[in-house]
Every structure is written in C-alpha cells, then in structure tokens.
C-alpha cells in the first residue's frame, strides 16, 4: 500500500483490472484536487489584490481576448478527452472476457448470492476461484436488480431479472474478498454479502476434483448425487427432456421444427426479420422467454414462451447444456457487451 493509497483510502488491488485502472484513478483524482485548489487560491489572490478601496469604486471594463477564451475551452477539453480515452479503453477490456475464461453463473436474490459452476457444484455466498486464471461471471437475478461489487477487484456489474449480464476478472492475490450489493434491493440490502475466496491454483484444483467426485458434502449440494447429474450440463439435459425442448430441437445437427442445438452456441444466425444475431447466453435466454422476437431465418414462429416456467437457474442449466453440444472446443469470439 503506497502512501497515496492510504491518503485516498483505496482498497488493496487484487485483480489485473485493479492494477490497470488505478493509474487513471490517481491521474484524475490528483488533477481534480490540484485544479479546484488552484481555482480557489486564484480567486482569493485576486480578491486580495483587487479589493475595493473606496465605496462605489469605478472599474475599467476588461474584455477577454479571443485566445484566452479558446484556452478556457481547449485545456479542460484536452484533459477530459484523455481521461475518457483511457477510461473507455479499460472499460472495453472489462467488457471483453478472455476466451479461456472459466464461467461461473451468479444469481442474486433478496438477500443472498448464489454461484454455480457449469460442470461442477453450486454454492451459496462463497465463490471459490483460482488465482491467476480469468473468471467470467454471468449474472442474473431472481427478483429485483442487484449489483455484484468486489472493491479490491474494482469490478461491479448489475444483475437484472430476466436477462444475463457479464463481467470478468483475474485475481492476483489469494485471500478472501467481500462481495457487496450496490443496487438498493430492499430491507436487507446492506447485509446482502458474499465472499470471493481466491485459492492458489493447485489448491483450487484439489478442491474442484473433490467436489466433482462428490467427496465433499459441504452442504452445497447433496453428496449422494452423481457429479455428472448435479452439474449444470447434466441438469440442462434432464430439463431439455422434461420440458419437451427436444421434440423440436435436435442434438445432432439436423434441423427440425426449430434449429438444432448442435454447434448453435457462438454461431451468428440470420433472422426472419432481417438482421443477424450472435448466439450467446443473452440470446439463448431471450429465446426461451420471448421466442417470437428473434426467430432464426427459415423457421416458423411457433415456439411457446417459457417465461414463468423456467427458473433463472434452470435457464442457466439449459444454456450450459446447449454450450456443451459443440464439435470443437469453441474458438469463436465470446460475446461482447451485455446484449
């Protein structure tokens, strides 16, 4: 912790993004302090120099020369644009998770956080991640809007009901970091806490394998269940059969009443209404909830809405199942932005 961090009360930096963004943080905050002090001091000095000597004193009119007025515009504009440029570059970085990121589904509900790994366990309040590996969070909410905030990572993302948003981080320090909810969500908003537990990679792998084998019964999920079945992919497969998805969507690439799910994720599809859409988590979820809005070209608008029939966790499981149906490990670009 540098002296500057202590003066500014900045929390420690525990992610690659935090390391990057804090440079700009210093730049902006220090310029602000210097500029506002300079304006205040200049005004005071001018007062001292030009104070009124006699009541009703006359003054000479002074008009600013054009170059001075131009300076008034150009100097702040230059500073602001530089800040914006750097800030927007970093923001784009935060909106573009690396392709090899590990996915975790995050669900906010009044007043707790739930975390689910696509092919592993799920847990309440504690998110375990490995140090040094990028982690992509896919966030949604079961009720009102929440916001996932880890100050040491300098990341924050709203979790909205009915859609998925994303953010990502690579933790650079092992340890426990508090998750706070930053979108007001009701009576217990201020105690809706969670924890990110950053483990050394080997330690994480050990824990992970243990979870997979169902050896650990931390209470996160019933230990008796087969790991495969309790994984999100397994749940998705079961749901797809139970809900009747497979009557219209094939798993082997044959088009049927609806598009086949094989290799669907990551593809770019033409729409009936014209335009194109990238098949990502957000599109798949939208298609379950509001299927007639974006129908893939060549298919009839016949799919019923599953709004209200599919819980957020189930939607996530179905999405994960669809994502698992790919012939090659996906090299496509991952979705950018939130929709």
């Amino acid at each position, binding site marked *: 912790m540098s002296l500057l961090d202590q003066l500014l*009360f*900045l929390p420690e930096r525990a992610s690659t993004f935090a390391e990057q963004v804090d440079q*700009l*943080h210093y730049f*902006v905050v220090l310029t*602000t302090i210097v500029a*506002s002090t300079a*304006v*205040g001091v200049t*005004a005071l000095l001018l*007062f001292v120099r*030009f*104070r*009124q*000597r006699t009541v*009703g*004193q*006359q*003054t*000479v*009119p*002074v*008009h*600013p020369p054009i170059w001075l*007025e131009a300076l*008034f515009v150009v100097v702040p*504009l230059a500073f*602001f*644009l530089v*800040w*914006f440029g*750097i*800030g*927007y570059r970093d923001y*784009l970085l935060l909106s573009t998770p690396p392709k090899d990121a590990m996915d975790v589904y995050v669900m906010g509900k009044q007043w707790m956080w739930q975390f689910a790994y696509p092919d592993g366990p799920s847990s309440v309040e504690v998110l375990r991640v490995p140090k040094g590996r990028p982690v992509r969070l896919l966030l949604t909410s079961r*009720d009102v*809007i929440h*916001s996932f905030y880890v100050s040491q990572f300098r*990341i*924050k*993302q*709203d979790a*909205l*009901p009915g859609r998925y948003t994303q953010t990502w981080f690579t933790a650079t320090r092992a340890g426990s970091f508090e998750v706070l*909810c*930053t*979108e*007001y969500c*009701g009576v*217990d*908003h*201020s*105690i809706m806490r969670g924890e990110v537990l950053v483990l050394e990679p080997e330690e994480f792998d050990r824990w992970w394998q243990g979870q997979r084998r169902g050896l650990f019964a931390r209470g996160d999920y019933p230990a008796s269940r087969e790991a495969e079945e309790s994984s999100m992919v397994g749940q998705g497969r079961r749901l797809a059969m139970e809900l009747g998805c497979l009557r219209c969507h094939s798993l082997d690439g044959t088009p049927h009443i609806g598009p086949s799910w094989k290799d669907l994720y990551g593809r770019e599809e033409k729409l009936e209404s014209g335009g194109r859409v990238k098949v990502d988590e957000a599109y798949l979820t939208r298609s379950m*909830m509001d299927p007639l809005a974006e129908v893939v070209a060549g298919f009839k608008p016949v799919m019923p809405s599953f*709004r*209200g029939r599919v819980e957020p966790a189930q939607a996530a499981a179905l999405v994960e199942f669809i994502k698992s149906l790919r012939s090659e490990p996906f090299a496509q670009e991952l979705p*950018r*932005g*939130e*929709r």
Partner: protein
Amino acid sequence: MNGAEAWAPGPPERTYLNARRGVVSWLTTRDHKRIGLMFLMGSLTALLIGGAMAMAIRLELLSPGPSVMDALTYNRFFTLHGVVMIFLFMVPAIPSVFGNFLLPIMLGAKDVAFPRLNLASFYLYLAGAALALWGMIHGGADTGWTFYAPYSTTTPTQVAPILLGVFTVGMSSIFTGLNFIVTIHTMRAPGLSWGRLPLFVWAVYGASIIQVLATPVLGLVLLLVAAEHTFGFGLFDPARGGDPLLMQHLFWFYSHPTVYIQVLPAMGVISEVVACFSRRPVFGYRMVAASSLGIALVGFFVWGHHMFIAGQSTFDSGVFGVLSMMVGVFTAIKVFNWVGTLYRGAVSFTTPFAYLMGFLYFLVFGGMTGVAVATVSLDVHWHDTYFVVAHFHFIMVGGVMMAFLAALHYWFPKMFGRRYPEGWGLVSAVLIILGFNATFVPQFLLGNLGMPRRYYQYPERFEALNVASSAGATLLAFGFLLILVYLLLSLRYGEKAGDNPWLSKGFEWNTRSPPPEHNFERMPIIEGAPHDYGAPPEVAHATR
C-alpha cells in the same frame, strides 16, 4: 445604466408587501413577487424537513450496526430525504423563488406573462407537496428517490401517493418554465436586447427550456411506475415481457437534465453576485450566456452515464461518456470567466461573496469528480458508492445551496427592504463551508474505500469516516439554524436597507427596495448592459 429616470419616487411606504393586506390577498395574489415569497416559505419548509431527515440518517450511520431506527425506517428516511430535497426544495428553490421574484423586474416588466398560471403553479406545488407528505406519514416509500423498477413496483410500501405528489410538483415546474420562456421572449423593456439580458435571466431561460421539455417524461415514468405498483401493469417486469432498463432510461432522461434545472439558475445567481461584488460586468459575457444554453442542450444527451454498469451496450456507454465531458467543458468556461471577473475589479468581501468563494471551489471539485465518474472505467469502481453521493452533494449543496444562500443574502434587502447582520452572516458562511467540507470529503473517501450507498449497516472498516461525516453534518446544521434565526429577526429588526445597499448596477436594483406593487412607477428604458460600473455610482439611487 440609466435607472434614475426609470422610476419616479412614490410614497415610500407603499410596497408590494403592504399594498394589500390580509391572508386572502396573499392567497389570491397574482403578483409574481408575492408568489415568489410563498415559494420561498414552501421550499424553506421542505429544506427543514429534508434536513431533519439527513440528520436522522447521519445519526444512524454513527455506528456500523443498527442503532436509533430499524432498517425499513432508515430506507424510508433516505428515500424521503431525496424526494423532499430534490423535488420540493432544489428544483423550485432558485427558479420559482428568485426567478419569480426577480425575472420580471430584471426584464423591466410589471409581471410574468401569465400571472394566473403562476399562481396555479404555486398551488400545484402545494398540492403535490401535501400529497407526498401525506404519503410519507401513511407508509412512506422505501425505494430511493430513483424509484428503480422492479423494486419500486413490488415493494409493499406505499409508493403511489409519493409518485403522484412528485408528478403534481412536476406540473408546477412545467408551468413555471413555460411562463418564464414566454415572459423573456415577449416582455422585455424597450432597449433590452438579448445581448443585454442579465446572466441570471439567461441561466433561468436555459433551465426553463429543460423544465418544459424534460419534466413531461418524468411525469410519464412516475405514472407508469405508480400504475404498475397499483394495478400490476407489466411494463418494467421482465416476467411479463417488460424491461427494467426502460424505466431507468426514462427516469434519467428527466433526472439528469433536472440537475441542470437546479444548477443553471444557481450559476445565474453567481454571475450576478460576482459582477456586483467585484464591480465589473462578467468577464466573457457571451461565453457565459452561451454556455448556459450549451449545458441545457447537451444535458439532454448524457443520461446514460448513470447506467454504465446497468447492462446497456458498450457503444451507448461510450457515447454518453464522451458527451458528459462536454458539460464539464461548458462549466469550466463559466468558472474561468467568474474568476476572471475579479481581475481588475473592486472586490468587497460580503456574505454573498463568501458563498461565492465556497461555490467556486465546490463546483470545480464537484464538477471534476463528475467528469471522473463519467470516465467509464472509473465509474465501475465508484458507481453506487458514497463517491457518487459525495459528488452530487458537492454539486447540489456545495453548488446550488451555496448559490441559494448567496441569493438569499444578496437579495434580502431587495425583497424586504432590510439588512441582515453582516457579521453573523460571515460567521454562518464560515460554519457552513467548513461543515460542508467535513461532511462530504469523508464521503468521497468512503466511496474510494468501497462503501455502497443506501446502506443501513456497514462493515466496520467504514466507521471512522462515517463518524467524521456525521460530525461535519452537525456543524452544517448549526450554520443553517443560525441563518434562519438572524434572517427571521432581521425581517423585523434589521437595519433599513435603502433602495440599493450594494450600489449594484444589476437591473433589478433599478426600482425601489422592496419594489412597489407593479415593480416600476414608469416603464424603464434600458440603455446599456447590466453591471456597468464604469460610471460613478448613481447616488440618487443609493441613498434614497
């Protein structure tokens, strides 16, 4: 200018205050000055209520755990603090009080264009305020003043009366804005060209345009939220095909420009005060006037900077981010020109000038932290933390409130014909400026440290800064109470001010203080720009 021949001295005792007597004469008045005073009473009452709530909030936050109230009460308090302060105090504070009182006088007009509409505007404000207060007593919403769906549409508390109250106050705001626009266009005295308009008028003009164009959108979204909460519409509910982000877009389409409804008139006040107390016309008059319209225009296209992490596209965030910087540039133009006005002036340090100095510092700091949170990547850390709370309190309290206090002191003799005690004025100004810093600088640091806003309980690492902030708030409250006491006493016991105690050459001083019922005995003819101190003071004015 020219005021000496603009009015002829009448019997000094006949002013707008005593021309008609009795409560009914006030309640049915169409005199813009009386309506302005009634707005002053209304908004000061709101300030007292909102301030008491702020103190209750600061009291609860003295310790990390629950202390003086339960979570639901706390949530209602911060909601109502926001609603009362923004919609019942800040929005009407300068336009409806000082705008009403001064705008026609500055224009050399007898009244505003639509005096009846003006009175209707006051009654709508009163009705809206009553509805909102009634809603607070019976249940009280716990949504935050931003009313974000789907929380606001599903909470068990009573949001509808408060939403309807704010809707009604919004109507009042539209009436006032419309009235001012028409008045400025059609009622200027002979010789008062656009290039000679006082900067306060330019600023109120910019604010009025926003009031007329943006407030209907607020009305719309508030009605929709009320309807969804009461009747179960599905507009913002994703489970029924709605979209919670739609609500945020509509809300901020008004609620960001509304900041400028509050700030622009405050900037107008500062332009008048800086000219009067440095005895110089404002440096770069054209730039300052044009930047008011610039802020009014660009202010409409920056709302998305409230939604960088809400789930809008990265493209939107870029556009809204870069446009937000433009507001900073327009504000910087004004600040540099105000400071430039002091150069080669004849500056006197009075209470309004003390608030002006506070204003300059707070506006630059608050404004630049605004640019900082519009810097997209930094906002990710600061969004919805106390940093944002501190930023907008710097603009609202540090900016608008300082200007309001400057206006109150500067125009107190104009309104009531008496002076306030200058010594007490300076003492309270120092108290308020120190108290303000002590309250809100710790909140910036809390935001850096990562304390989210709207927190009833908080982790212990935030305690020390919260205690500091609460201590500062106490100082601030003392400052306000002191002002209230000496101004009330001055109404009765204050020294007689004469017509122009500041020897100001603002146009509003072209008539007696307090002004007669119809402002002028004879129509003034304007022969120059305001605040021309190149000529010797017109003693006839000053000593009458």
